[in-house]
């Protein structure tokens, strides 16, 4: 019952100011965001708009200077398994093979060997890496590494998956395949996803809701509910309509900033 009313993630008037060499830099100001369980949210904006800062605060890697970060109404005080992070640079443990990377979380949380094994097998299947279970990260392609990173977070019972430009370093073909797979996994598992990207098309393809941010200082400008039916056709006129609209949104900031 509570789940229906309390948002899984809530940011209330959140601000973040870094101090660097005596100068203070305002990375984020007055951000409000409320995420319902099961939602797929994309944060989009030019570099320096605070989208990664927002994500890292949701993860608990950084504390807010102002405002509240809440999960199920409880303040987020640090990183934890309920909020799994998928990094652009993967962050896999190079000394562990695929199986042990995915099993890292369950093992840390005191699961038995048998339980861990079962969980790992399930998620290796889910991301299609059965043949690579005993391979070390340096032998994998970028796409496969990112599959391991996703499986690792899912195997740890994450309720929210935070993704920081996860497909940004991949080639176009691999990126499209992983986008498809991510939507597939998301729709089957009822996960909540907070996804940072700077690619408009990616945001429209993935998100229930696109949050547009702008820099100087970083802030949230607008939110758009994407009502396109899934699976989405990136060549459809409706998709193009969204692309044009969001594109002009983002570019108006550039123009404003330049002027």
């Amino acid at each position, binding site marked *: 019952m509570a789940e229906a009313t309390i948002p899984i993630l809530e940011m209330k008037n959140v601000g973040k100011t870094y101090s660097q060499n005596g100068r203070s830099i305002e990375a984020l100001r007055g951000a409000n965001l409320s995420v319902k369980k099961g939602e797929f949210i994309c944060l989009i904006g030019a570099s320096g708009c605070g989208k990664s800062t927002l994500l890292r605060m949701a*993860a*608990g*890697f950084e504390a807010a200077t102002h405002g509240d970060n809440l999960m199920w109404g409880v303040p987020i005080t*640090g*990183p*934890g*398994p309920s*909020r*799994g*992070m998928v*990094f652009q*640079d993967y*962050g*896999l*443990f*190079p*000394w*562990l*093979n695929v199986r042990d990377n995915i099993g*890292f*979380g369950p093992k*840390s*949380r005191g699961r038995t060997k048998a339980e861990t094994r079962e969980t790992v097998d399930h998620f290796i299947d889910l991301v299609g890496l059965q043949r690579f279970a005993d391979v*070390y*990260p*340096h032998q994998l392609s970028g796409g496969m590494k990112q599959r391991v990173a996703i499986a*690792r*977070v899912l195997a*740890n019972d994450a309720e929210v998956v935070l993704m920081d430009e996860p497909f940004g370093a991949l080639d176009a073909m691999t990126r499209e395949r992983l986008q498809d797979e991510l939507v597939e996994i998301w729709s089957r598992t009822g996960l909540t996803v907070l996804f940072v990207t700077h690619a408009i098309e990616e945001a429209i393809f993935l998100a229930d809701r696109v949050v547009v941010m702008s820099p100087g200082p970083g802030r949230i400008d607008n939110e758009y509910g994407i009502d396109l039916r899934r699976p989405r056709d990136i060549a459809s006129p409706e998709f193009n309509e969204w692309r044009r609209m969001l594109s002009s949104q983002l570019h108006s900031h550039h123009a404003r900033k330049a002027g």
Partner: protein
Amino acid sequence: MTTLASHTEDETASAPETSWATTWWPRLRPLLLAVTFPAALLAIWHFSTVGRPGSLIPPPYDVWLELQDLAVGGINDDAYSRTLHAHLLASISRVYGGFALALIVALPLGMLIGRVPLIRQVVDPTLQILRPVPVTAWLPLAMIMFGLGPRSAFFLVFLGAFYPILVNTIFGVRSVEPRLFEAAAMLGCSGSAQFFRVVLPAALPSIFTGMRLGLGFAWVVIVVGEMTGVQTGLGAIIMEARQLSRTEIVISGMIVIGTVGFLSDQLVMLIGRRLLAWSPSHG
């Protein structure tokens, strides 16, 4: 039909020949290249020393005979015959003993210096000032502190192996990618658990490099260490033979140290390759 048959015969006949060349030549080539240079050195050594009674350096064949005499006797039958195993054993035990002690001290110390700022601030400056002091400069002091004998040798070997292990351990535990701490934390591994599950495995390649360098230094230092008046050991026999102008024994000792040091390094490499199969630069 007949032409066809003869064709296939030809091919089958020539097939083993080409496969012999393609399978063995690539393996033989590096071996031949590796042997060429020492063979040339040996030839130069031989022709510049053989048949010259006044030469202070004995020809290779004399050294070979001496090596045999040291190992199994039956040629000179003097005080040095059949003593090689005793000297070798003494040196090996000092090298590995000193190395093991260095490992026991340098590993935990390096991890503490690397991870605990307070300990780094207290201990590191002193260690950094002592580091450039060559091991040989410690020799007189070692003889005063530990007396003439094997304990001084042991100490010097310890010192020689200590710094490479320490420095590389500190480097290893300090240069863990920050991203990996974040990854561990969001997966539920935090605090001191991160030391064993992140810091230690991430530092292993660097620690391993330190161990390999340390063991190499231990073999270098052993000769100096055994000049401190010990009776047995490869360093001792080299120094003693030098005073007696038995240069063939000196060279024999050098050859044995070179060989054993090489084999010992190969052993460490073998262990490393198994332990660090995950690392692109080791596996």
